[in-house]
Every structure is written in structure tokens, then in C-alpha cells.
């Protein structure tokens, strides 16, 4: 297929996935922040942290709730807001309408139009839950319709690849900012804190069913990094990304991104199973996986989109 179209599809996937993760994180932090007693110790998931996760410049004062919610949700002057991502994805979708099914286009277009409605900003001020529920619902609708109506061809594979690399990246960013470092010493995380982390990805019940441990920072971190059975974990996303690229590439045995992902997948598996007692490794592992995925992203650009991505800086800790 055309490299331009593949590139567009890859980014539509990334943008929609990022919009959904951002909305879920905002919703999770909002819910935790409304109540008190959250920031005594353990996991850092605050408005401040959210800005760091989303790569925004930190203001010199502690950001207020309204400020962050406005900026990351509906602010169209900020390219890193939910509304901007959805609009960008919709603009991209206009150029790939020949490979999208009509229902997919409609899903993404009504999503965009729904966020333009004027009453959203009022809803955001009084209770943003309804706005985030709308975003989650529309993302679910888009991916559901895609699964039901889109031909499983290269186009589908690139769309999926974009969605999964973004999902892995967002979860990694969140964990890197929110999890306490190993050198913080003894961290008996407040239970509520790590609950917020799970709620910020929508994984609370999955965690409860999969892990008998209480939802403290460490088991939650391991779960979101290693648990392949949970669809939004980093390991599951890496696996799906590997699968998508293998499908898209007729010569996948020689494909640098596929080979790299194969190694990463094996490495994640090895660490989660064979080095079970290696509890100290999670924080360091997060940085390494994120670096590897940046390499994969560059490899993808190189191999499929004609070599256009900034070089990945070397990881200092490697």
C-alpha cells in the first residue's frame, strides 16, 4: 500500500489511542483528587504529574485542577489536548476514506463533532465525568466498528500498530512519572493511591481478578508492565504491535522493527517469569522499554514511511 496512507493510518491509531488514555487519566486523577487524603505517600498521580506525563511544560506555580482539565481536554490551541488529538485523527481519516469503512468514518466524524458541541465546556466545569465518558464511549465505538467492518489488510495492521505503540507508550509514561523510584526507600504505598493508577487506565477489575495482592504501587506496576492477559498492559501492547507489523510486512523476518519487538517481547516475558524475585527492576525496566519502543518507532518510520523521524537519543542508563 502507499507509504503515505500507511503513515496516516499509523498516526490515526496513535492519536485516538492517546486521546482515550488522556481522557481516562484525567478522569482517574479527577476522581482521586476530588476526595482528600491521596497524596501522603506512594504513587504520584496529581495534576502536576499529568502535565509531566503529557509532555507539557510545567508552569512555575502548582497547577490547579481547572487549569489542567481545561488545557488537556478541550483546549484546541494546545496540540496535546483530547480535542486536538481527535480533530487531527479526523483530519487524517479524511485522507484515508478509501480504506476506511463508511461506519468507521462516521464514528470518527461524529466523535469530532460531538467534542465541538458548545455545552461541553460547561459540562467540563461542573463535572467532567460526562465528557470523559463520551470520549471513552466513542473510542470504544470506533474500535468496535473497525473490528467488525474493516478488511484485515495492511491498512488495518498499520492502524492497529499505531494504536498499540501509543498505548504502550502512554502506560509507560504514566508509570514512570507516577511510580515511586526504587531509591525512595521504603514505600508502603497508600492503597487508594495505586487504585487511582488502575482507575486511570480502566484496569481495576482486571487487576482484582488477576492478582491476589492488595493494589499497592509495586504489584500494580508489575501488572501494568508485564501482565499479558490484560489488554492495556505494556506486554500485551508490545505483543499486539509485533503481530500487526508481522502481518503488514511480507518480509517480516528481515524487518528491523519486527525483530526488535520480538526481542523486547521475549525480554518482558523472561523478566516477568524467570526473574520473579527481581522486584527492584521495574522502574529501570520502564525506562528501557520506553527507549526500545522509541527505537521501534524510528525503525517503523525508516522501513515503511521512507525514513523520516528524528534520531532517538541514547538512553543514559544503558
Amino acid at each position: 500500500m502507499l507509504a503515505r496512507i500507511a503513515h496516516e493510518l499509523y498516526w490515526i491509531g496513535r492519536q485516538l489511542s492517546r486521546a482515550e488514555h488522556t481522557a481516562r487519566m484525567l478522569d482517574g486523577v479527577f476522581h482521586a483528587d476530588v476526595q482528600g487524603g491521596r497524596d501522603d505517600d506512594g504513587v504520584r498521580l496529581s495534576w502536576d504529574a499529568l502535565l509531566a506525563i503529557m509532555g507539557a511544560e510545567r508552569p512555575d506555580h502548582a497547577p490547579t485542577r481547572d487549569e489542567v482539565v481545561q488545557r488537556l481536554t478541550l483546549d484546541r490551541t494546545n496540540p496535546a489536548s483530547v480535542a486536538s488529538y481527535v480533530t487531527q485523527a479526523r483530519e487524517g481519516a479524511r485522507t484515508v476514506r478509501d480504506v476506511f469503512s463508511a461506519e468507521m468514518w462516521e464514528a470518527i466524524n461524529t466523535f469530532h463533532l460531538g467534542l465541538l458541541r458548545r455545552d461541553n465546556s460547561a459540562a467540563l466545569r461542573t463535572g467532567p465525568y460526562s465528557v470523559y465518558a463520551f470520549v471513552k464511549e466513542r473510542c470504544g465505538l470506533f474500535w468496535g466498528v473497525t473490528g467488525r467492518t474493516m478488511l484485515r489488510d495492511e491498512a488495518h495492521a498499520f492502524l492497529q500498530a499505531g494504536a498499540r505503540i501509543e498505548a504502550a507508550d502512554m502506560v509507560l509514561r504514566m508509570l514512570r512519572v507516577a511510580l515511586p523510584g526504587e531509591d525512595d526507600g521504603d514505600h508502603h504505598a497508600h492503597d487508594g493511591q495505586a487504585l487511582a493508577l488502575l482507575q486511570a487506565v480502566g484496569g481495576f477489575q482486571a487487576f482484582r481478578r488477576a492478582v491476589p495482592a492488595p493494589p499497592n504501587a509495586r504489584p500494580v506496576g508489575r501488572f501494568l508492565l508485564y501482565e499479558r492477559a490484560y489488554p492495556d498492559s505494556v506486554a500485551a501492547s508490545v505483543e499486539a504491535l509485533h503481530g500487526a507489523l508481522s502481518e503488514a510486512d511480507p518480509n517480516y523476518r528481515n524487518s528491523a522493527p519486527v525483530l526488535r519487538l520480538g526481542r523486547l517481547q521475549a525480554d518482558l516475558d523472561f523478566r516477568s517469569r524467570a526473574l520473579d524475585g527481581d522486584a527492584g527492576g521495574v522502574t529501570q525496566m520502564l525506562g528501557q522499554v520506553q527507549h526500545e519502543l522509541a527505537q521501534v518507532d524510528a525503525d517503523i518510520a525508516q522501513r515503511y514511511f521512507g525514513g523520516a523521524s528524528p534520531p532517538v537519543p541514547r538512553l543514559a542508563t544503558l
Partner: protein
Amino acid sequence: MPDGYDEVFAEPGRPREHAVALAAALAELGPDALSNAGRMRDSIFMQQGITFDAGGPDADGPVRDRPFPLDLIPRIIPAAEWTDIKRGLAQRIRALNAFVDDVYHAREIVHAGIVPWELIVSRSAFARAAHGIRPPGGVYCHVSGCDLVRDADGSWKVLEDNVRTPSGISYVLENRVAMTRVLPGLFSSYRVRPVDHYPALLRGALTEVAPTTADEDATVVVWTPGPFNSAYFEHAFLARQMGVELVEASDLVVRDATCYIRTTNGLQRVHAIYRRIDDAFMDPLEFRPDSLLGVPGLMRAYRAGTVAIVNAVGTGVADDKAVYPHVPEMIRFYLNEEPILQNVQTYLMADADERHAALARLGELVVKPVDESGGKGVFIGPTASDQQIAIQADEIRRRPERWIAQELVRLSTCPTASPEGELVARHVDLRPFAVFGEDIHIVPGGLTRVALREGSMIVNSSQGGGSKDTWVLEDDAGETTRAAAPAAAWSPPELPGLRQGGEWSGQQQQQQQT
């Protein structure tokens, strides 16, 4: 209500210190916004299936699938007051637990002449089958929910104990979630202690009491009578939140003296059962032989100590309404402490002197049947007609042991939103929930139930009552400054910049340059 205690207003128009911000926020919101928020709450509850069925006496037939009636005005408990309640409850639960242990073992309290043995054995909840069984850690009342009320003078009193299968905790959690979604603005001036760790507490307690060997993970289940039970929503909620299986009797099986669940991989050993079913229905071999909800042989496994049952069998003897008047004595006897929370003055109708005194002034008292729950059969003297009083007096004379009489407590009131969004004073009570594993943990707040009819003091949801989100405040006002300090000192780890989608044309140019 001039002669009662109001939770928000010290006198009309002047809010109590802790409620000033709430009253201001409500005034700013206005009735229209409040009634809009009410509609949003109803639609959220309907979407999420948080509904209840009821067949009240006034309803035209049974009511099905109504959104759970959450009132949007929260009830606030200041930190200092909560500390007292918590200490009082923990003390009371320890005493009740010691009482259950005593009743089924040494019976010291009987020998000391404090509680008569005839009273204990005649309770319907007294379980002969539990005699001599001591569960791990000596804990019987793992889960409890005592009903507290605030009297006209502002003091807290215990109205009823509940150490069988108290329900309502799911509404505490769901109410909080709904409030943060529907009216987050109300929270802005307060730091409210979270409640959502309850499932973790309960699961922790269940794991602690499970008789496992060292390298074994405990299998914990929630046992429900089935989807037709009125509290099924809560059973499913707890199982989901704890991440454990929700089982019915047909899923459980006892082989020899071990309890198993039937799974797709064959039988799997069960270590702890959180049962939401009455003693009488648990094991047809030991209790009611006609029970279809029970598991034959379960008591055998329980007696052998291979499975923990939570709450333990036979705890109902401690929360019986006829045992209730003895609880302050129990606290003194077992703990050698003075009760922190007082009882409501109660008269046993089985006692001839107390009966005569009570019959003479029945119009001022509340009369309750000892073996009912959920507000059924409660007689309230001041609102009864002469004829009703006469009928009730006859009932008491006919079977005095079935009844107790209590002084009327003027339940405190709390502003409550009417469907039009106006604030009206309605009576409330409070049911805090405690979990007793290795230690007693009490979830901040609990379920505040509110009587939605003017002047009514019946708060049960089956009788047209509603509920309120209950806020326990953080320790002091200095809290916010303490929280802000570390945030400023903290710097996030170095993250790569978030990539935005590159322009395709830009990519082409780059490509040509290489």
C-alpha cells in the same frame, strides 16, 4: 425542627462551623442546578444498573428497577467527632465478639449473673451447632454495621447492632463515585477521607482468617443466596471489587471435611467464605432441613477448621434486640472499660415490671419485634392512633417475649434536596461498616440513611428511605498546605517529548535531503 438536632444548621440560617462552606456552595448552586444534577444522577444509576426493588406499604404494587435514591446533599462528620465514634464502635464490636465467644464456650457472663442463660438459648439466632467452635484468631464478627443515631442533644447513640450480614456498603462506595461525578464542586472546600479501600480491607481480613498452609494462596468466595435476593447487587459488587468468585449453593460441595467449588478444572479447595446467607439456611444437615440454599456438610468442614465462614456461625445471638440492653454491661465485663457510645433506653417486655411501666405510656415509646429487621413491624407511639395503641398493647400482653420497647429518639435532621431542588430537613441515621481481621478497621463514614417523607423517622430503603454520601473530614485545616509542599519539591523523571504526528510533506523533504 426546633426541638431536634440539625447536622448542618446550628439554628435556622446559621450553619455549623464545618458546614459553612457546604451551605455557601449549595446556596450558589441553587435549586435548578440541584434538580438537574438529580436527573443526571438518576440516569447514571440507571445506566450502571444501581437500582433497587421495593414493595412499600404505600406503593401500588411492588416497585422495580428504581434508581437508588441518593440524596445529593452530603452529610459531614468532623474529624474529632469521627474519632470518638470510631473508638466507641471498635470497643462495642470487641465486646460483642467476646460475648459470642463466651456464649459458645465458657459462658462466664452467665455464671457472673449478667445475662440470663434462658434469654440466650431462647434467641432464634442461638446456634447449638456452633458450640465449642473457635475460628482462627477468635474472631466471629468479621463484618459489622451498627446503626447509630444522633439524639436531640447532639450525642451519638447505638440504635441497633448488626453482626450477621449487614448490607449497604456497596451503596457507600457507589454514592461516593456518583457524588464525585455529579457534583464535584461541593468537594472543593473539603478534604474528604476516601472509602474505596473497603473491598481491599475485606479481602485482607478474609485472607487473614483463611486456614491456609504456608505456600498456598487462599481461595476466597462470596456466597449469595442468588439473583432474587434483594441485596444481590451488593453481593455481586463485593465479589467484583474483591476479584473473587460469586458462588451459589450449587457451586459449593463438601467432600469428607473439606469444602470445594466446582470449576471447569474440577474441584478447587475453598479456604474462606464470605456468606450473605442466614445461619438457618447454610447447612440442611444441621439447621433447617428444608433449605434448598444450603450446602450439606458445610458445618462438618467448618468444625474441622478447613474453611473459615465469615461472619462465623451463631453471631446473631449478639445482635438480637433482646440482648441489646445488656451490651453496656458486656463492655464493662469483658473489656473492663466504660462504654463510649450509649444505648437507647430499652425495656424488655418479657420483664413484668418493665412491661407494666411501658404499657402505661405506650403512646410515648417505640415498640419493636425482636426477630425482625428492615423496619418491619415497628410501632411508633407518638404517631399511632388510640386504636393502634390498644392493638399493640394486646400483642405485647399476648407474647411479651417477642417485643422490646424503647424511648423515642428524635433522630437528627439534615438538609435534603426535594425533587424540585429545595432544601428541606429530613431525619437521618448512620450505619458505619467495620471489618475485623487481625485488627478492627472502620471505613470513614458509612451509610447515612434518610427518611424522605417529612417528619418520618423510618429510614429503611424498603420503606421509602434514601441515602446520603457521608463525608468524614481530614484531621485539620493545615492538611492542604502539607500536601502542596512535596509537590513543589518533586521533579518528574526525564521523559522523551511526546511525538505529534509528523506532516507527510515534511517527511518527503527530509527524505530528499538524505
